[in-house]
């Protein structure tokens, strides 16, 4: 490669940087101080939309290489490439210095941003230039999140003979997968795959399970993290509870069941679902009469409990501190709130339901014993589904609700196409006479056996229509869907009895707090950023912290399991070596400069 003598740096969008608080004036001053940098521009210098102006600026300084620096500079790369090709260069000399990609976001990361820029100027990939030193690592591991990713990672490490702390926010492990009826494309029973793993976790001597617990704070350094965990008051003694259910039978407090996606009600003292691990009761403070009345009313569960001192209604949250060498983050996702997409009438029309609700209806252990029925109300007016409320004769599934939409989330949630096809199949299986319609934008059947599954569904008498439904309206007691049937070049207005919204997936609500505590980076959409999307998909820029599952980006169950095993492999590697890689943020600018002169 020839020796480049003049470089121009364009700072993209330093004023509106999507939550980034880097000190851009300092970075620009640093850029000017580098000897080969002949010009430094930003949006004040010229409008990027005007290719002529860029061309003039390039010619003026005889620029041979352009660096676009900024939070997400890739967006404007094509413009510069076009200018370079118009000027007769090829596109290679247009290089990105992406601060967010390497975790430089807060004001404290300004040094790192300079280092990223320095590497771009030198033409060295940052990840090769900035290799942090190794540190001593403790053999214990913390896994945050008890979904399929957390379960898989915990089992891999525990089976290797190493100690794992598995922290789960809710009362049971299992996560979203426990709620699903079948998995695509094989139509295996999800619970049959998951529950044995859950039991393994519960019984494993190397796994210390901390359910109903949350991370409060993380301190220390890679290889030696001190983690403070709040064990929320479960109010039922885990070691003495025999799970007889006498308490729940008499409990007057009710709330929508989280596990059943709000399709039915549960008691204030409850087991999340029959196969829960640990299979012990817990008390939800928000719906408990005793706690809400400050101990004046109720307390009936204590009276009926056959075990002495098992239920302690006045129990308080506890805090524990553990020391671990590695942390695996597997916090998963939350589904898109369908009420936000007002055009589909979720919350307004009772027969518009979400895919997660349908998932519970179809499940034989669900509130309707596997029958697909209409939403109705219980005596107190709570919306529930019962076995008696009648079945729809036509069901429509709408894809991409809250995904691939600039108004909500612009990314593709990746799983909705396949789970919608699966749900369409299951609806047809449960209601053979019902008409099933699927409205999609693009059918993304991307995995092994997925395309075949799609073709199979199409041959099952399900009407698969290319065209997004614009809105759902009520007409003559039915729901009317209007859409363009693109492949048949016509407009269709379809009345159906039930509409299922294939809601997309979003980062969990506490992902932001967790990323601050752990010092890991989130991308623009809120997913945790991996060190390298292609070649290092489980590590983060913070030493000793790996990520697995949907918290890193939308993915289906097979990919999640694979990534969880990969994360566990990294951790086991570190435990065997007794060492862990440090954090990139601990490398100073001088260090990088002197190493790469």
């Amino acid at each position, binding site marked *: 490669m020839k020796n480049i003598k003049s470089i121009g740096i364009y700072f993209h969008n330093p004023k509106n940087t999507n939550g980034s608080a880097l000190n851009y004036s300092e970075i620009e001053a640093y850029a000017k101080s580098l000897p080969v940098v002949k010009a430094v521009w930003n949006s004040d210098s010229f409008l990027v939309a005007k290719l002529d102006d860029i061309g003039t600026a390039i010619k003026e300084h005889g620029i041979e290489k352009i660096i676009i620096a900024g939070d997400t500079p890739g967006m404007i790369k094509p413009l510069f490439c076009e200018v370079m090709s118009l000027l007769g260069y090829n596109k290679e000399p247009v290089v990105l210095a992406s601060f967010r990609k390497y975790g430089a976001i807060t004001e404290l990361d300004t040094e790192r941003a300079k280092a990223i820029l320095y590497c771009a100027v030198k033409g060295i990939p940052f990840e090769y230039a900035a290799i942090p030193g190794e540190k001593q690592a403790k053999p214990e591991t913390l896994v945050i999140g008890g979904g399929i990713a957390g379960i898989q990672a915990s089992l891999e490490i525990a089976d290797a003979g190493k100690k794992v702390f598995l922290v789960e926010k809710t009362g049971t492990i299992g996560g979203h997968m426990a709620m699903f009826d079948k998995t695509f494309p094989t139509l295996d029973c999800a619970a049959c795959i998951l529950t044995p793993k859950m039991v393994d976790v519960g019984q494993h001597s190397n796994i210390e399970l901390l359910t109903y617990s949350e991370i409060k704070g993380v301190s220390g350094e890679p290889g030696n993290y001190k983690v403070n965990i709040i064990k929320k008051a479960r109010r039922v003694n885990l070691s003495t509870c025999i799970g007889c259910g006498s308490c729940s039978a008499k409990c007057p407090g009710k709330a929508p069941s989280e596990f059943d996606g709000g399709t039915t009600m549960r008691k204030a003292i409850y087991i999340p679902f029959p196969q829960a691990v640990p299979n012990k009761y817990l008390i939800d403070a928000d719906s408990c009469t005793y706690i809400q009345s400050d101990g004046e009313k109720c307390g009936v569960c204590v009276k009926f409990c056959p075990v002495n001192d098992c239920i302690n209604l006045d129990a308080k949250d506890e805090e524990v501190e553990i020391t671990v060498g590695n942390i695996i983050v597997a916090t998963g996702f939350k589904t898109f709130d369908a009420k936000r997409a007002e055009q589909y009438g979720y919350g307004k029309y009772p027969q518009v339901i979400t895919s997660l609700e349908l998932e519970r209806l179809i499940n034989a252990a669900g509130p309707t014993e596997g029958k697909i029925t209409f939403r109705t109300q219980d005596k107190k007016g709570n919306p529930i589904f019962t076995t008696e409320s009648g079945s729809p004769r036509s069901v429509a599934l709408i894809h*991409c609700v809250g995904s691939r939409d600039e108004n909500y989330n612009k990314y593709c949630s990746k799983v909705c196409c396949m789970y919608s096809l699966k749900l369409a199949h299951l609806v047809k299986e449960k209601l053979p006479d019902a008409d099933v319609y699927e409205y999609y*934008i693009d059918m993304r059947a991307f995995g092994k056996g997925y395309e075949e599954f799609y073709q199979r569904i199409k041959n099952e008498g399900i009407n698969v229509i290319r065209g*997004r439904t614009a*809105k759902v309206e009520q007409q003559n007691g039915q729901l009317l869907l209007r859409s*363009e049937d693109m492949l*048949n070049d016509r407009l269709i207005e379809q009345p159906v009895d039930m509409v299922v919204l294939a809601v997309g997936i979003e980062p969990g609500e506490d992902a932001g707090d967790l990323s601050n505590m752990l010092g890991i980076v989130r991308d623009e959409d809120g997913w945790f950023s991996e060190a390298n999307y292609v070649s290092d998909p489980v590590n983060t820029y913070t030493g000793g912290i790996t990520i697995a599952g949907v918290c890193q980006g939308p993915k289906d169950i097979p990919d999640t399991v694979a990534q969880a095993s990969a994360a566990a492999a990294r951790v086991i590697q570190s435990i065997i070596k007794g060492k862990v890689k440090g954090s990139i943020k601990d490398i100073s600018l001088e260090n990088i400069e002197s190493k790469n002169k």
Partner: protein
Amino acid sequence: MSTRINPDFKKDLIEFGIDEWNECFHCGNCTAICPLTENGFLFPRKGIRSIQMGLKDKLLRNVDPWLCYYCGDCSDTCPRDANPGELMMALRRYLTSVYDWTGLSKKFYTSKIWELSAIIIFALLIIVLFAIFLPLNPNAAQLVNESGGVMINSLVDGVSAEQFVRIIEYGDWTMAIIVAFLLISNILNMFYKVVLKDNSVSIPFYAYFTEAWRLIYNFVTQAKFSKCDSNKFYWVGHLLIMTGYSIMFAVVVVFLPEFQIEEIKDWYHWQRLLGYYSTFGILFFLVYVTISRIRKNEIKTKYSHPTDWLFIVMLGLTTITGILVHIFRINGMVAATYYTYIIHLAILVPMIMIEVPFSKWSHLAYRPFAIYFANLKRAAYAKEAKTNVSPAYA
């Protein structure tokens, strides 16, 4: 039938207000939410497809952009922010230039210099004609009638009131005939491109007559427009400006001798009330649209092409000078009446000569005729039973 792809077609559209055509990923949301689209006339998505693929010929025989009244629902709900409503608007500008066989429309849309020069030339022409042939009578101060109003037709020395009205009337008719000739020939051109060149349909002959009444009905009531928007205010406003302008046009061109008279009637006389209604109608909508375009508070007024502004300014100035002439007349201000009258004409004439046949205002003809042509095609579809009846999967 083969379809030619013209990869550079998109670039022709930039000057008409389309600078981004690749955003659309064809989800069909815009077509589904549009209250006016129907089988056989699916828009806006298909139009965007034609742009993306460079299907120029297909777009030229497409009346769909004219069937859109731009309520903005499609742009509001578009998951890609591709702005289909504005693409339709820009396509209407483009099609206007296509229907215009003189090629002037394209010049006016794509070059501000051309448009402004044309306006200035017409304005100067009016001023020069008045200066040479119809100068103000030096003794004009006495030219007020017993009620104190200016005798507007007698301001020129040596030209009787009757002659003056006749001269203006001839001028008006000349203008009207030129504009009518251009419009009619452009509509014939549109008919050729949209109906005759579209080999996919054969229009049943009777349809030309059966559909004709709907052309008139829709022109008068804007019935299609009323279906478009949940905001009926906009439709009422547009109906006001349309009727107001049509009345004014009839008064000025057809019935000038009856209306431009020396006597000043009482304010409640029907002639004056008619004038007030028209003025109010035009002004009301004009102010509404101006505020909306400045604030950019609605999707349909968010993006303004230079020609949109020019149209508003010209119509606004015409209305204001018209009102001023009226005020000066009533108050017996002779010189002010005369000069404002000339300015009024110097704005009015270029506005009509340029806006009506070549620019934004041509929609007064293209829209109703597009609906007419669409109805012809619909009759052909019905005859051939080409379209499917929804619900499609019933």
